[in-house]
């Protein structure tokens, strides 16, 4: 049989940073992110996690899907698609967003970068081109161009990240406010390209994301690492990022929720309210996809709510089922992500809880192993309103040097 395929590269694709990442990856633990080799950890996830909390680390975000959306209808199209009001988003600002299907269930989340009145990039972890094409229906002055391979990206996160950027002579980088975008000639002393820096990230701490043409990716890496040692610079992998994002209370698609276009069971998808993203749903703006359903849900109450739980003891509540009573009689939800948080010294979890039980007692039934033997503990959980880790330094402008 003659099978024609468009895949010409066997195995995982290599990001523009791969030649520098590979030597660090002593563990040779590569995961797959959109077809790209993505380090799960380089040496030790725990150590790498601490770069984002105590010094600074870099994470290769080049595999992020990037869609350039231009044209006079771009704002109106995005505004119909996402739940926040794009018309309120300033130029050179980034906004976290979700978009819903017609039933008000979340398809995916991502960030919208606004470069001009009619020039945007939508970034998301998973491909979204087919949904974007559908969402463009009815708009004429619009173009969508995928730039995933045309932009290399490095997340630089941690308390010393700003100081390191200043060491690269990027004038005024410390003045970037959270979610602001800046353009810098790069390298500062002998510019060959433009470096776009957004004060964004997935760790909840001080951090930036650096965007550059792929042919200059290694130059960026080398400049960072030439000056990085005093700032504790080290690459970090997916496992450490996952720890940081749970502390920050950030949700992950296919972990906290199933994208609405992928669920088999109709009620296995979730609305933004269920994901506790109420602040992102702007019901005051005119028609956007899912609006009618979301208005209805707002009136009637949400069947589920994603909660942040603080759990006594040190046993990680991974995969725990939640109950209304200590005797574990009435099931009321499940843990989606759990972590023994190093920085807060707390045993934390994100959990989906039935809407009718969010103000009542919540008990987690935790299973754990001791020399292969399974044990069980039932712990009463406390609901946390704020992210577990949300330091002021992450918001301060200019950030202090550490």
């Amino acid at each position, binding site marked *: 049989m003659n099978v024609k395929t468009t895949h010409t590269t066997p195995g995982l694709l290599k990001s523009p940073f791969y030649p520098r990442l590979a030597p660090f990856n002593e563990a040779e633990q590569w995961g797959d992110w959109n077809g790209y080799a993505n380090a799960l950890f380089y040496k030790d996830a725990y150590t790498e996690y601490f770069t984002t909390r105590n010094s600074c680390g870099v994470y290769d975000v080049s595999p992020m899907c990037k869609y350039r959306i231009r044209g006079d209808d771009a704002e109106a199209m995005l505004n119909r698609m996402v739940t926040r009001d794009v018309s309120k988003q300033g130029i050179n600002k980034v906004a976290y967003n979700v978009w819903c299907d017609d039933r008000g269930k979340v398809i995916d989340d991502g960030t919208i970068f606004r470069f001009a009145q009619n020039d945007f990039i939508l970034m998301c972890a998973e491909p979204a081109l087919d949904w974007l094409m559908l969402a463009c229906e009815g*708009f004429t002055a619009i173009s969508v161009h995928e730039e995933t391979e045309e932009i290399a990206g490095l997340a630089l996160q941690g308390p010393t990240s700003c100081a390191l950027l200043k060491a690269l002579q990027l004038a005024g980088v410390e003045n970037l406010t959270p979610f602001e975008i800046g353009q810098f000639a790069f390298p500062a002393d002998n510019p060959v390209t433009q470096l776009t820096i957004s004060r964004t990230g997935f760790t909840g701490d001080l951090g930036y994301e650096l965007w550059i043409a792929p042919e200059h990716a290694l130059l960026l890496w080398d400049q960072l690492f030439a000056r990085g040692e005093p700032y504790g610079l080290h690459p970090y992998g997916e496992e450490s990022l996952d720890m940081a994002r749970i502390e920050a209370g950030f949700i992950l698609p296919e972990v906290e929720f199933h994208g609405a276009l992928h669920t088999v069971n109709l009620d296995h998808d979730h609305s933004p309210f269920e994901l506790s993203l109420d602040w992102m749903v702007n019901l005051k703006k005119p028609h956007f996809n899912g609006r009618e359903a979301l208005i209805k849900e707002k009136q009637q109450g949400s069947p589920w709510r994603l909660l942040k739980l603080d759990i006594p003891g040190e046993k990680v509540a991974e995969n725990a089922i939640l109950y209304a009573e200590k005797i574990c009689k009435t099931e009321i939800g499940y843990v989606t992500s759990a972590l023994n948080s190093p920085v807060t010294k707390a045993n934390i979890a994100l959990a989906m809880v039935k809407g009718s039980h969010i103000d009542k007692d919540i008990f987690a039934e935790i299973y754990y192993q001791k020399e292969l033997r399974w044990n069980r503990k039932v712990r009463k959980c406390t609901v946390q309103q704020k992210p577990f880790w949300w330091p002021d330094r992450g918001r301060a402008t200019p950030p202090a040097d550490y």
Partner: protein
Amino acid sequence: MTDISASHDVIIIGAGHNGLVCANYLARAGKRVLVLEAAAQTGGLAASRQLDGGFQCAVPHSLPQLQKKLVDDLKLTDFGFRLPDTTLPTVALNPDGKHITITADQLCGASDADTLAYGEFTRLLNRFAKAIEPFWYKSPPRIGSGNWADTLSLGQFGLNLRLLGKQDMAEFMRMIALPAQDLTDEFFDSDLLKAALSWDFVIGNKLAPRSPNNAVLNQLLKLSGDLAGNNRYHTGAVTLFPGGANSLIRAMEQSAQAAGAEILCNASVKRVLMQDQTAVGVELDDGRTYKAHHIVSNADPKTSFFKLLGARHLPIQFAHRIRRNRNRGMVGKLHLGLKNLPHFNQLNNANGRLLIAPSREYIESAFDQAKYGEVSDQLAMEIVIPTLQDPSLAPTGHHLLSAHVQYLPYDIKGGWEEHKPRVLESLLNTLQQYAPTIRESIVSAELLTPKDLEQEYRVDGGHWHHGEFCIDQWWVNRPTYGASQYTTPVTGFYLCGAGSHPGGGIMGAAGHNCAQQILNTGKGAATP
């Protein structure tokens, strides 16, 4: 509520027959109705048209789907509409002259075995038609609404099927998705007969005898009319427009006006005006605007949602389903103005519905070519000569030949401008095989392709039914879920055309059902 100073309660975009029917019922219920028609006259696809030489014709030439209820409700006979007093036989023309004549209850020229089978065949189809009859003039249920009326409607559908009895219900479930080919093979021997009976299963849709799924449903829609009496089996009981399509449309128009509806022709709607995600009015091409509480579109779904409303006002997945709606027509229309009555070989009386379809393979082969953007030299045709019923449609002594032609692709390789003369010529060649002297009688001729129908009648895709009539675009899915109860995702915007349940054909049920939906709004009817 939106703040508007509305001049009318309801604006209906398009004065096709469904628009006129919808306007009529609403006006009778006391609503102030304004109907806006882009053309110079009302009637839409059923509007009468002039053929050079003083002939009057229309795209539809028979009205098997019209129900007495509609004629009575709207008092159409008070406005000059005459109920047909005779039904025409169908004649399956045989090139050799051994034609088979089909009437509602018998065959003439067929074998004894085929004649016997015909009785059982029509009995079953009549029963099936009767079982689903109550659902044509009723809004489809909203699945999962929890509304008792919806649940009742669904339950009644199941009950009606059950009341067919165990054996016939089992047969219904088995036969409903069969191709015409298999179905006719089960009952009959004669190729000519099988082809003639297949015709009504496929006409009007992208269907050929071997196409599965939709043939029986297509036939049952055509059996929805009751003017031919209880035995409505269509192939054997064709009713013509007495006075042509014009008399029905004029009666519908005058009846609506008498009920209080205002009708404006030459009033082409450019777009629907929106305010706070609610349809509040319309703007015409000439800049005039009108406002109303309900805006109803008689146009096809794609024109309604994309051209008049704009996809940006719609939910994304809903808009996509409308975009994917299959609505490319495959039926052409041939009109010939003739100096005298054509003579068909071995046929004493041309006052019938004459089919040129010698075998199912003949039909299928024309379909195969149309699928790939080509046109067969041997097309199947359904011919009537309306002037035999109503001589006033032509100058004295002259006759009109009206024929549906299958299959003409919407898009033809090379374009219709290049191919139309050739296709017309090949149609005349085909006709000549059955009526050898017909060319000498021709005074004028026109061929309307699906593309012509689209342009002249403003029907996207040029489809008879504004969209394929098929199981996936039927009932609760017509035109798609979210708009199958005549309401749409946009508050105040409704559909009343053939793209909605039950579908096309001169029937008026979509217009009737839409009017009921609007009248029920606020009386506990479900809103989307």
